[in-house]
């Protein structure tokens, strides 16, 4: 998907360290706890990003391909 607001080039300064930290964040947690930690992380990072246009695009990209190759990747229309 084409993005206008979301930066899809690498911005992480230490990618491997980041990835390891992300996985480690869930160590010792059961599924429900992990879901909660993920949710908190998303909320914290979303607030850091701030810009709803970027966030909406990130959400659409996140959904991309999840429902299978031919399915709609766009988010449902805004109310």
């Amino acid at each position: 998907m084409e993005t206008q607001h979301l930066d899809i080039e690498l911005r992480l300064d230490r990618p491997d360290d980041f990835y390891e930290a992300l996985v480690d964040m869930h160590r010792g947690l059961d599924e429900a706890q992990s879901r909660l930690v993920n949710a908190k992380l998303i909320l914290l990072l979303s607030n850091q990003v701030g810009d709803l246009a970027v966030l909406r695009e990130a959400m659409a990209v996140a959904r991309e391909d999840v429902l299978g190759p031919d399915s709609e990747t766009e988010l449902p229309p805004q109310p």
Partner: protein
Amino acid sequence: MVQARENPVYPYRRSPDQDGEQPAHHPVIVVGAGPIGLSAAIDLALHDVDNVLLDEDDTVSIGSRAICFAKRTLEIFDRLGCGQRMVDKGVTWNLGRVFFRENEVYRFDLLPEAGHQRPAFINLQQYFVEEYLVDRARALEGTEVRWKNRVTAVEPGESAVHLTVETPDGPYAMTCDYLIVADGARSPVRHMLGFKSEGQVFQDRFLIADVVMKADFPPERWFWFDPPFHEGQSTLLHRQSENVWRIDFQLGWDADPEEEKRPERVIPRIRAMLGEDAEFELEWVSVYTFQCRRMESFRPLPRVFFAGDAAHQVSPFGARGANSGIQDTDNLVWKLAAVLGGRAPESLLASYDAERIPAADENILNSTRSTDFISPKGEVSRSFRDATLMLAERYPFARRLVNSGRLSVPSVLSGSPLNTPDRDPFGGRMVPGAPCADAPVRLAGGPDWLLNHLGGEFTGVYFLGAEPGMPKADGEALDALERGGIPIRWVFVGQGGDEGGQVLVDAEGLAHERYDARAGTFYLIRPDQHVAARWRGVERDAVVEALTRATGGVAVASTPRRAGDGNATSRHRAASRPAG
């Protein structure tokens, strides 16, 4: 066990309309004496529109229904002449607190600034609100409430609407120019006419208990997510008048509504919350599911208008039900009065949909979001909800995401065709379409409020700033407008020390501040206290054009209006003009 309050009973009285050869005709008939129909009938009478209000019952609201009445509703009640009685009887509150498990995570002040006559909210049982509205209606000549009058058939005709009304003495017929349908969420009239109200039902159940007890919780809205006394669900506590407390317990979709209503089930829930030795009596208990829905059009036929729950429905978190319905009639009545009085073309009536449909959508959107937060669908939504609450305890950013109800505020009619877009630069919130902000003023040496002087009819508010009078050109423009028979009431707001005259003295400067006004600023205010247009000075043609637009006419510059149109209401006295 459950000791319901005794409501007043209004006896059925036979009307001469029941004995006529021909069906009697009334300019407006209102169906349903709930808060919305009653407000409509009173407002119509104040606008000199004779009307009849029909209700199938003979009393006020029974059981646990609306309690939170918003600032804007109180301002409308002030205009209708019964606001003070409501405020005196109600419990005033501005503060909401949200708890998660054992801790307070967030509090909000709904009226963080001083200088308003009315508070953010009062809590007052719907039965008191209706009783006071009935008393107000009965004191007016132009309206007649007919109890035990059930509308059983409606036939919309070309030139009139025909009604059949069932009474203890049998049926009779009537006709009207315009019908206001305020017969509640089930709206029999909507069904009779074949219209629908569509939306979604939320898969959750709520136990609503009204409890009589002496307790010393402060007058605030307390909302708990997942409290220790009601694990996994939410609870809401509100103080009402006369030591009645409203407690809402979320029950979940699987709860059995009949079982949950039994005092043997309810009392332990309340004891768990208030303590084992709490002393209380149940006044009323019911179990509700909530929905958000609306009709496609609130004027589905040229002579038929729907208002209140008949037109749209929301969940009560946010108190947007009755509060928005009263804004419906506030919006509709002056338009009907203007059209019936020949002061506006019928096209003005189309603006009811144009203004109130977006307002209903705003309320439905807010209500849906709150309900989704309170009753998350599925485990992931619930994780986000709990994550938000956990973060909110410690981190300020997350507090703004907590949604236990976004409480009713009036809609800004920003997309309305009746608005004249700004030509001059303005800051602040009083954009065309906005409901007017209040401000403290002084009149003839005594304290007063700006809103008491706006509305009822078109009002022109001229700000003098610190100047003693107005520039010659502005005075001439006002003279020209008056000579043209323009039905505008003038209000002058100054900052000078003249405490004797008709000028409203803005001693604290808040009126000027809230309207971003300086000497020469001029606002045209609609009869429902919404801003129609504003300028940095008065120009006759611009005002005429804005007024024409605001009354549904095609705005053409320099269209003089018919002389002798008079004022919409005779209740208001025009202020004499300060000499320049």
